[in-house]
C-alpha cells in the first residue's frame, strides 16, 4: 500500500530507509517472506514516464538537489544521485555488471567478510537477474556502439555490448535500433514489494534514529512539514553512499562511518565524424571496452545536444558546433577505479552533508591512459577529430598527435564527474576498518543494518548496481534465517 497521508505516529516490524537498488531489494525480499515492512523514501513517488530521460526535467524531478552536488577537493568532482522512489536506478543508464571475482576475494580477505566469495554470491546475483533481465541489444547496435567496436577492433582491443537493465520496445529508431525503457526499481522490486503487502511512504526524510527499548525510533519529516515518529524493531538504512553515513552520524553512530568514501572518477570526450552518427532517441548505448578493467574502462555516454554543448563549452566555437553539427558528434566516457580517499561528514544545522574526495595519482594515471586509448580507438573508427577537454592537446586529429597525450591527467584538469559513489560504511568483521559486519549489521548496534552501496569494501571498478542488489539479497536472506 502507498501511504500518502501518514498519521504522526507509525509502527512497523521492519523499516527500510531508501528505495534504491539496495533498499528496494531488501524491502521486497523481507515482505516476500511475510514480514511487515515499511519502506521510507525521501524523494517523490513518480511514474517512470513523468519526464524524458537525461533531461533538465529529470534532474529537477528525480535527482538529489537538482543534480547539483559535488565532492569537494582539488579538483572537486561533480556527482549525481537519484532522489525518488527507485533511487539511482531511476536516473542511471542501467549498465549491468557483477563485481569482478578477484575484487570480491579481496574484500573477503582484507575486511574479513565471512561466508563471502564469488561462488557464494552466485545464487544472489542470479535471483536479482531473474527479476531485472539484464540484456544486450536484440538486433543492430546504435551507431555510437558500432564506432567503439570498430575502433577497438582496429586497435586490437575487445569491446562488448554490456547488458543493460532496460526493456526494449517494439518501436525502432532511424537506424532500426529498438527504443528502450529503464527496468528500474519502480518497474520491478518496488511493485513486487507492494504486491507482497509492503507499505511505501514517499516524500519522507529521516532526520535521526534513536534507540527505544529493544527497538528503534525514527524521527522523520513528511513532505517537508509534518513531523513523524516511527517505531520499529529493526531498521535497514539504504540511503546511498552519502546519506547513509550522514544519517548514522546524525544519530550518534560514527565508528568507521563516512570515513572512507570511494568514487569512480570519470571524464568525457567528444568525437566528430564526417557522416551522421547521432540519432534521436539513441540514449546511452551499453558498449564498453573493459579489458583494462578494473583499473579503467571506457564506453558510450549520453550525447543529447544539450550534453554535447556542455562537453564542448570550453572549446572555441564548441557550443556552435554542438548546435550545428550535433548529428555528427558523439560523446564517450573514461572511468577510473576509485580509491578510499573521500569522506562524508554530517554538518550540524544543515540537511546535506559535506562530501570530500581527493583524486589520487593512480586515478589520474588511469584517466590519462584511458583518454589516450579512447582517442586512438575513435580516430581508428574514422573520427575527424576528438575533443579531449585537456588544456594542452584539446583537439586531436591524427594518431600521430596522440603520442603527445600525457599518460597522466594534468593536475589542473577540473572537469571530473562521477555517478558511482560507494564504500562509506564498509562491511566485514575487521572492526578497525568496517562499519557493519559481514551481513550488514552495524557493529555494536543490535537491530540496525546497512544494505546499500555504502557497504562495498572498495570500488569494484565497474558499475556497482548489480553487486549492490546481490549483496542486499544476500543480507536479507541471512536476516530471515537468524
Amino acid at each position: 500500500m502507498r501511504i500518502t497521508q501518514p498519521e504522526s505516529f507509525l509502527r512497523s516490524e521492519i523499516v527500510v530507509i531508501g528505495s534504491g537498488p539496495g533498499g528496494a531489494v531488501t524491502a521486497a525480499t523481507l515482505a516476500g517472506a511475510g514480514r511487515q515492512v515499511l519502506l521510507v523514501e525521501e524523494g517523490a513517488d513518480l511514474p517512470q514516464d513523468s519526464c524524458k530521460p537525461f533531461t533538465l526535467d529529470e534532474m529537477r524531478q528525480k535527482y538529489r538537489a537538482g543534480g547539483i552536488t559535488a565532492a569537494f577537493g582539488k579538483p572537486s568532482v561533480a556527482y549525481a544521485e537519484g532522489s525518488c522512489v527507485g533511487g539511482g536506478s531511476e536516473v542511471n543508464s542501467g549498465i549491468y555488471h557483477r563485481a569482478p571475482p578477484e575484487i570480491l576475494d579481496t574484500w573477503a580477505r582484507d575486511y574479513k567478510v565471512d561466508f563471502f566469495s564469488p561462488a557464494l554470491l552466485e545464487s544472489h546475483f542470479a535471483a536479482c537477474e531473474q527479476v531485472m533481465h539484464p540484456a544486450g541489444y536484440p538486433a543492430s547496435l546504435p551507431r555510437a556502439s558500432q564506432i567503439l567496436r570498430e575502433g577497438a577492433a582496429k586497435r586490437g582491443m575487445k569491446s562488448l555490448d554490456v547488458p543493460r537493465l532496460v526493456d526494449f520496445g517494439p518501436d525502432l529508431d532511424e537506424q532500426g535500433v529498438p527504443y528502450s525503457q529503464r527496468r528500474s526499481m519502480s518497474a520491478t522490486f518496488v511493485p513486487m514489494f507492494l504486491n507482497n503487502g509492503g507499505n511505501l511512504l514517499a516524500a519522507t526524510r529521516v532526520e535521526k534514529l534513536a534507540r527505544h527499548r529493544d527497538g528503534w525510533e525514527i524521527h522523520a519529516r513528511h513532505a517537508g512539514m509534518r513531523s513523524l515518529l516511527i517505531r520499529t524493531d529493526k531498521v535497514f538504512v539504504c540511503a546511498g553512499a552519502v546519506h547513509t553515513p550522514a544519517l548514522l552520524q546524525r544519530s550518534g553512530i560514527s565508528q568507521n562511518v563516512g570515513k572512507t568514501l570511494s568514487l569512480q572518477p570519470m571524464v568525457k570526450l567528444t568525437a566528430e565524424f564526417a557522416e551522421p552518427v547521432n540519432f534521436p532517441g539513441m540514449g546511452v548505448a551499453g558498449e564498453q571496452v573493459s579489458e583494462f578493467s578494473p583499473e579503467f574502462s571506457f564506453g558510450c555516454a549520453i550525447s543529447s545536444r544539450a550534453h554535447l554543448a556542455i562537453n564542448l563549452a570550453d572549446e572555441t566555437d564548441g557550443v556552435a558546433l554542438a548546435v550545428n553539427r550535433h548529428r555528427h558528434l558523439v560523446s564517450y566516457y573514461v572511468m577510473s577505479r576509485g580509491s578510499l580517499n573521500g569522506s562524508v561528514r554530517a554538518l550540524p544545522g544543515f540537511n546535506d552533508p559535506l562530501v570530500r574526495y581527493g583524486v589520487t595519482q593512480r586515478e589520474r594515471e588511469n584517466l590519462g591512459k584511458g583518454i589516450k586509448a579512447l582517442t586512438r580507438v575513435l580516430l581508428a573508427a574514422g573520427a575527424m577529430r576528438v575533443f579531449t577537454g585537456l588544456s594542452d592537446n584539446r583537439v586531436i586529429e591524427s594518431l600521430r598527435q596522440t603520442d603527445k597525450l600525457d599518460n597522466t591527467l594534468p593536475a589542473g584538469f577540473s572537469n571530473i564527474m562521477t555517478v558511482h559513489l560507494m564504500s562509506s560504511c564498509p562491511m566485514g568483521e575487521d572492526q578497525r576498518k568496517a562499519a557493519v559486519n559481514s551481513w550488514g549489521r552495524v557493529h555494536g548496534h543490535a537491530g540496525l543494518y546497512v544494505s546499500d552501496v555504502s557497504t562495498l569494501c572498495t570500488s569494484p571498478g565497474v558499475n556497482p548496481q548489480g553487486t549492490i542488489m546481490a549483496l542486499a539479497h544476500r543480507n536479507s536472506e541471512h536476516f530471515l534465517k537468524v
Partner: protein
Amino acid sequence: MPDFLRLAMRVATRSFDYWGLVTCGSRFQKLSGDLRRLQLDAWKNSRFDFCRNFVRFYESLYLLIVMEEDAE
C-alpha cells in the same frame, strides 16, 4: 544544490555581478555583450578554481535550459 552552499552561492553570484562594476564601471547584467564575454572569459580562465567552477556551473545550467528549449 546542497543547503550549506546556498548562501555562499548567492554571495558569489552577487560578487560576480558587481565585479563588472569594479572592472568596467557597470554591473555584469548591464554590460554590453562583448564586455560580458570578456568578464566570463576572465573568470573561466582564472587561476582560482572557485572562479572557473562558478562560470562552469552557470554555463552548464544555461546550456541545458536553452538547448532543451530549442529541441522542443
